């Protein structure tokens, strides 16, 4: 099938899909008139039940905590999968970072990029830490905070060389952090079982008033562990992909 025919087959199919899809969507209760009832019920009871003022986090780390556990392990599995797919194959060896095409002029990293990246590392770390530890009070949580923490490491890569990036994020330590993050979440659930409660029950004291950082029991703790796991997973994924620039097939040299 040549590309032109393929495009026409697609256009016909996509037009039908889009028409039916849109028809289906217009059957929903119109935009802006959410009918409930689940969101309304949770909005009404969540603050009293969990002492968390961030209801999205309460849904994620308490009401749907079991789902979120699976979600965290999806990311864990992806990091493992990237490591496996990008493992060193036979005949591959490490070589010093060098541009593949020799004939182009690659400018060295400019001082401006180095400086801006280094200046941003500190605030990014603080902001990531803040997001990962304030799921219970404001729009944040472990997933968002973890991605920001990983960004701090990528800024260091931008500011310097890959080797520096490798030195400050040794794979063994990052792997351990990932395991602690993923295992911590599961362990919180098992602790509840050990106390004779259902899996992932919020067994910690909820704090005296809603909206305090120390409130909401396991919601804050789970969010913190998720933050560690997500940060480590992203550093693993990024460093595995970056490491590919240092590999070459021996037979091609």
């Amino acid at each position, binding site marked *: 099938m040549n*590309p032109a025919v*393929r*495009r026409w087959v*697609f256009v016909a199919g*996509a037009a039908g*899909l*889009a028409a039916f*899809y*849109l028809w289906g*969507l*217009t059957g*929903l209760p*119109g*935009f*802006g*008139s*959410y009918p*409930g009832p*689940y*969101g*309304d019920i*949770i*909005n*009404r009871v*969540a*603050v009293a039940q969990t002492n968390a*003022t*961030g*209801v*999205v986090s*309460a*849904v*994620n780390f308490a009401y*749907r905590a079991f*789902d*979120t556990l699976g*979600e*965290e392990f*999806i*990311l864990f*599995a*992806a*990091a493992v*999968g*990237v490591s496996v*797919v*990008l493992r060193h*194959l036979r005949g591959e060896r490490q070589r010093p970072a060098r541009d593949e095409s020799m004939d182009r002029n690659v400018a060295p990293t400019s001082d401006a990029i180095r400086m801006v990246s280094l200046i941003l590392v500190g605030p990014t770390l603080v902001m990531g830490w803040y997001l990962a530890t304030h799921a219970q*009070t*404001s*729009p944040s*949580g472990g*997933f968002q905070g973890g991605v920001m923490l990983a960004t701090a490491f990528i800024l260091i890569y931008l500011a310097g060389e890959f080797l520096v990036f490798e030195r400050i994020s040794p794979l063994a330590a990052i792997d351990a952090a990932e395991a602690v993050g993923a295992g911590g979440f599961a362990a919180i659930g098992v602790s509840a079982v050990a106390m004779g409660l259902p899996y992932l029950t919020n067994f910690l004291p909820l704090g005296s008033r*809603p*909206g305090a950082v120390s409130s909401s029991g396991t919601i804050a703790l789970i969010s913190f562990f998720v933050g560690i796991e997500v940060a480590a997973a992203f550093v693993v*994924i990024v460093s*595995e*992909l970056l490491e*590919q620039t240092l590999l070459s*097939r021996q037979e091609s040299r």
Partner: protein
Amino acid sequence: MGVFPFVVVTWILAVGLYGIVTSRHLVHQIVCLIVVQSSTYVLLLGVGYRRGAAAPYFSDVSVHTPAVDPVVQALALTDVVVEAAVTALLLAFAVQAHKRFGTLDPQELVQFKG
């Protein structure tokens, strides 16, 4: 206005699919898949929206303030995480495909086996 956000959802889905079908580069194709998935974010947040309602955060407003649905927002978060995982794996496969076959054009890659 009632259906406009759903028109946007359908449009994002359609352009993403068009990109996937016509793409000549695996990385571009992966980005197109992200575009397809982005349509689900708009759909989820659109379904849970209530006109004039606040965000489901009650730090400084009463619990009785009308708020949008927090459940679909939590689902959107799941959606983002799955997208990140899928993208990371697909990019890793693209790296390996390039190493093995020396090309990233999907229409050339179909000639290769194994």
